[in-house]
């Protein structure tokens, strides 16, 4: 029963978002840009949610995967590698998701087998910084600190961005939902609760952790690809900055970590807050955001989802 209701609500919500471009001029409306950004953040946040919320491995290196996805798109396009049209090309986007997966597996094997908890978080932070230096120092191949310029004449309308963003957000949510409902999800939660006991029950800890880490990297990379199409000028400062890790984490935690709706609520809430303060309080915006993070963490450590649950249980 509950499942059916959730599916109906999701379908209705998706349709409602999907028809927005027919009523609103997406190219000029700030609201549509806000929705696009929220979709992007939902994708990364769901990925982080899967790694940290469900598996308990806090990754501080999502920006590396995001940036790698963006750069993969740009490099495939500029070097004419797949010969498939490139602009909003599913093959390019898929590859942009898969390259971060390769990195996730390569660094995941040593990091996840040896590091736990805070140490893993610091390790991923280190990986992120190394990736950034490699791209800054990459010479002509990565365009160094100036980055890569994609053919900007391709940009015609915001509409494909909007819909692709929506599809990716839906895809990310569906992937995380289905995975957490499967045997894999059960294993991952067992690992989060008690690694030792999970191992004793025959769960191959390292394999599952790497799997979760790779899924998070894949989603971040996909989103990076979309964002590369949006920016059309990829440089390390734009796509490899730590904000791409910190904001999604903020969204997950404010929304409610380890729940399927939490990252979505968080992404919309935080993006809305950032957008509003960006318009009305230009210089004060990050100050307000910082204050809000502190207040939410101090008074509602379980996030907005927790708040909703508390209200429900009181009734």
């Amino acid at each position: 029963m509950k499942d059916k209701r959730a599916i109906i609500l999701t379908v209705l919500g998706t349709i409602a978002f999907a028809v927005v471009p027919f009523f609103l001029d997406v190219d000029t409306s700030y609201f549509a840009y806000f929705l696009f950004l929220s979709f992007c953040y939902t994708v990364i946040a769901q990925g982080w949610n899967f790694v940290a919320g469900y598996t308990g491995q806090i990754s501080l290196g999502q920006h590396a995967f995001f940036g790698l996805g963006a750069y993969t798109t740009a490099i495939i396009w500029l070097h004419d590698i797949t010969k498939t049209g490139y602009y909003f090309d599913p093959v390019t986007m898929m590859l942009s998701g898969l390259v971060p997966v390769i990195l996730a597996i390569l660094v995941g094997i040593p990091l996840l087998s040896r590091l736990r908890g805070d140490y893993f978080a610091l390790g991923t932070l280190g990986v992120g910084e190394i990736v950034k230096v490699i791209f800054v120092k990459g010479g002509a191949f990565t365009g160094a600190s100036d980055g890569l310029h994609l053919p900007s004449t391709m940009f015609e309308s915001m509409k494909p961005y909007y819909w692709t963003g929506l599809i990716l957000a839906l895809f990310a949510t569906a992937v995380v939902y289905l995975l957490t409902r499967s045997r894999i999800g059960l294993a991952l939660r067992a690992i989060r609760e008690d690694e030792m006991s999970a191992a004793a029950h025959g769960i191959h800890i390292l394999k599952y952790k790497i799997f979760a880490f790779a899924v998070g990297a894949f989603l971040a990379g996909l989103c990076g690809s979309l964002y590369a199409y949006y920016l059309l000028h990829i440089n390390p400062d734009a796509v490899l900055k730590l904000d791409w890790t910190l904001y999604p984490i903020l969204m997950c935690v404010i929304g409610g970590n380890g729940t399927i709706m939490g990252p979505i609520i968080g992404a919309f809430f935080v993006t809305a807050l950032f957008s509003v303060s960006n318009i009305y309080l230009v210089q004060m915006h990050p100050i307000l955001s910082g204050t809000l993070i502190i207040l939410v963490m101090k008074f509602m450590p379980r996030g907005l989802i927790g708040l909703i649950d508390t209200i429900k249980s009181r009734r």
Partner: protein
Amino acid sequence: MLEYLSFGLIIQLLVNGILFGTMYGIAAIGLSLIFGTMRIIFLAQGTTIIFLAYICYWLFTLFGVDPYLSLILVVPISLLLGAGFYHALFKEAAALEDKNISLLIAVGLMFLVENLMTVIWTANPRSILTTYTSLVFRPMGINIPFTRLIALLMAVLSASGVLLFLKKTLIGMAVRAASEDMVSATLVGISPHRVNAVAFAIGIGLAGIAGIGVATIYPFDPVYGFIFALKALISLALGGIGNVYGALLGGILLGLIESLASFFLSGGWSDAISYAVFLIVLMFRPEGLFVRAMLKT
């Protein structure tokens, strides 16, 4: 590049590295104390250091207070700031099992302070110029800037001070006990809030000293703090968590690595090298490089 290499140059690089690294080390000691009792990675440490550097800058430009004289004002301010941070922000979060919350509060604090500084002091780099800023000693042809020498001295003195405090005073012993095992420490009557607040106060107090060191040596701007915090974290990992001298040595080691890497490779790579060393140490010696193996049973 190698044809310029001489014995004197190597010594100079090593000296630069040591002098450079003491600032990281002193920040790392603060992080280590805070992590020790609360298991919180206080990511806002670097930003706090820069904030205190700005306070020192203000005292100098507005009231003409000598940067080293301002120690007697900045250190008490930062001790109070630390206790204030704990009571206002981390008191509840420190007791929770989920450490993400305190990590995020630190991130929020970092955002807040960083941008507050941008509003007050603008994003342009600031520096303090006194009569002794460009003073350089040249024993045996090696350049040793006066300000860096003083910074080294301050770092060694404060590290020894903290160590003495932890070893000799009752509250210091309580902090050490709490770092070992908070539950048992509570059982023998140590108030967790008190030791946490003391650890935080000393951690930020050290940030005050580091802030003055930074203010007298480099030009600084608001966003420099985050990089500084990362460097302090690396030093902490190199030195081993909960080890005062280890953290200082870790900072010096990091300074050496950076100094050598930026000479033999180009400047940008030195960051990648230090992170790579950080990763390798995390993986193979997570207890740090300077901990004797028998301490852990």
